[in-house]
């Protein structure tokens, strides 16, 4: 462990984008379609063989499309998966406790209650059977099939490797999410990962998102061991969400006296209008040009909205990314970022339909960061499912919080605040896992655990 003076003087090496997986640093392609696949490893030797075959096709961040594929592939492992591969015990023991316990076991910390409780999750989420997660992206269905073929060939003849989960995903028309909102507009800018979008916020130290570099505390991760396993790796919190679009539409209709008011209430809950225009910059009506302009739709702060009159304190984007809204509090927001790689799935609910059609639709999010505990877990437990930080008692995030038909949402307003009641659960968690997403050299280390003794155990 480095002393205080050593950590403060650590210089940050340049990001090794050829060794970091593309999924960590790069946004999804446009347009996009793909599949998530979860595999179970029944035999360590076969697991490593599969890994050896799939390795050449895992996309690095500097070359999103591996030369062999018309798409890209990302791979990550749960703790159970690392065990199943035969990772040495000392290495397993060195992983942070939240990763070892798994997301399901930490439901009390995450406030995954009611419909979100792991008991209600889809198999294999939350069970010891989920080992390897594959994220497969392509621009077209034809290209996707080619990538899927490669993935399938890596394990088809290995009888101890089984597919325990598969789900397709794809972009909705207009690139909106199932609620009809432009999504995926903001991510922290990772220092050294490439040119920043204009209007982006201050770069965040690479070590917050990838291990092997200095983080915002000036520290470089020293676990898990060995170095070969941890360098250029990171952690991913997978969250599969079901979105009840019909309930969302019904609620807006019930609370509003006009279609315009419905749009305003929806925007107040999200923090942006459907076009993506942020409330802080467009407080009274939508501005679709602003929403479409990537150089402007993130260029805002809450400095002029400290009373929440433009964007409510309780709005979704203000909760998960407070920017400077908490600058008077003892909280270091730069320690609580994650990268959000999301994809939608399912068919759109046709315009005007107010009854659920029973279809599965929503989003799957890969929430990426080197420190699960103070990133995803912190935001989920302190800012999404609690409101003490904004003095709103036990109010929940209006979109993804734990509302059971009794939810409250406060809209600051003069002369008197407006308070909405009876919010149902619009979004439910269908499943989740904590995964470790290794660098490419680390994947080779994992694939050769049985062979070369030089590779194992060295710090």
């Amino acid at each position, binding site marked *: *462990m480095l002393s*205080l003076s050593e950590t403060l003087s650590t210089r940050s090496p340049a990001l090794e984008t050829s060794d970091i997986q593309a999924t960590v640093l790069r946004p999804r392609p446009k347009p996009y379609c793909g599949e998530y696949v979860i595999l179970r490893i029944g035999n360590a030797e076969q697991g490593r063989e599969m890994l050896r075959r799939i390795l050449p096709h895992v996309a690095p961040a500097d070359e999103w499309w591996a030369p062999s594929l018309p798409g890209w592939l990302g791979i990550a492992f749960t703790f159970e998966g690392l065990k199943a591969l035969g990772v040495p015990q000392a290495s397993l023991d060195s992983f942070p406790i939240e990763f070892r316990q798994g997301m399901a076991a930490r439901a009390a910390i995450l406030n995954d209650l009611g419909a979100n409780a792991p008991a209600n999750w889809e198999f294999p989420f939350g069970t010891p059977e989920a080992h390897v997660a594959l994220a497969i992206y392509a621009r077209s269905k034809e290209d996707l099939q080619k990538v899927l073929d490669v993935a399938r060939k890596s394990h088809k003849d290995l009888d101890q490797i089984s597919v325990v989960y598969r789900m397709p995903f794809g972009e909705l028309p207009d690139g909106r999410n199932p609620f009809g909102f432009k999504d995926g507009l903001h991510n922290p800018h990772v220092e050294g990962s490439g040119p920043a979008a204009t209007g982006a916020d201050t770069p965040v130290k690479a070590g917050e998102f990838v291990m092997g570099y200095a983080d915002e*505390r000036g*520290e470089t991760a020293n676990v898990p061991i060995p170095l070969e396993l941890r360098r250029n790796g990171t952690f991913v919190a997978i969250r599969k969400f079901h979105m009840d679009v019909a309930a969302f539409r019904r609620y807006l209709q019930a609370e509003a006296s006009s279609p315009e008011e419905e749009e305003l209430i929806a925007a107040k809950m999200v923090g942006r209008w459907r076009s993506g225009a942020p409330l802080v910059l467009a407080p009274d009506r939508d501005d679709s040009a602003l929403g479409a302009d990537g150089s402007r739709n993130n260029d805002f702060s809450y400095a002029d909205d400290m009373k929440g009159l433009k964007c409510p304190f309780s709005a979704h984007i203000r909760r998960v990314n407070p920017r400077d809204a908490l600058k008077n*509090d*003892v*909280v*270091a927001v730069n*320690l609580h970022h994650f990268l959000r790689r999301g994809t939608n799935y399912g068919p759109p609910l046709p315009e005007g339909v107010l009854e659920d059609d029973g279809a599965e639709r929503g989003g799957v999010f890969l929430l990426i960061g080197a420190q699960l*505990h*103070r990133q995803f*877990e*912190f935001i989920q*437990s*302190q800012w999404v499912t*609690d409101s*003490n930080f904004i*003095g709103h*008692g036990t109010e929940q995030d209006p979109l993804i919080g734990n509302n059971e038909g009794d939810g409250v949402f406060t809209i600051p307003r003069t002369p008197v605040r407006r308070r909405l009641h009876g919010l149902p659960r619009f979004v439910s968690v269908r499943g989740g896992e904590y995964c470790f997403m290794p660098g490419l050299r680390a994947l080779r280390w994992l694939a050769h655990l049985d062979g070369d003794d030089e590779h194992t155990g060295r710090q």
Partner: protein
Amino acid sequence: MTTKTVTKPEQSEVAKKIEELRKLYADAPEVGRIALEHLMGSMKDGIITDTEKTSSAGRTGLRRGKVSELTIVFPIAPGGAKRLKAVLDSGFNVQAPDRVGSVHDMRYVFLDNDTRILFATTYDGEWDPYVDDFATHIPDELDVVFCNCEGWPGVRSPAVKDYIAKYQVTARAWYVAQPNLTVRDLKRLERIGPALDEFLDKIA
């Protein structure tokens, strides 16, 4: 005290606890033995209503509702007692808990001839997720006080959570008047109360 229908298993649990108390108090000082007999009746109700109210506050301490207690007894480093007294007497240390916004109370008590210091606080939510934030925003306020504790690694050190856990003592019993009101809730109610009174006066 609330009345509630007592189930058979609960009844026998209560009876067991009362019996155990009676046995232990058989050779207690007389003033206590008599007090116990006087309290017998109300004690039965008390035992029932308090079950399940206290829980563990994560890694350290007890919790009731949203509020937890944290009690730590640190060894004082050589020469540390004088420095500790001076820095605590200077009074500036009250600002840090104000800024943190989730500290209900905090006390420092010297024990055992100034060789140990008791630090006790009542706070909202959890402290573990915020240790990194404290290390970022108020490291000096913490280090200037706790450097006087034997072996304090500095608040920025990854070892600080383990150091605290080492000297932390979980309370055996704990009470808080308003378990569901956080410091922020209380501040808000303090603002709203008078405004509401004024409003009621006006419309009366």
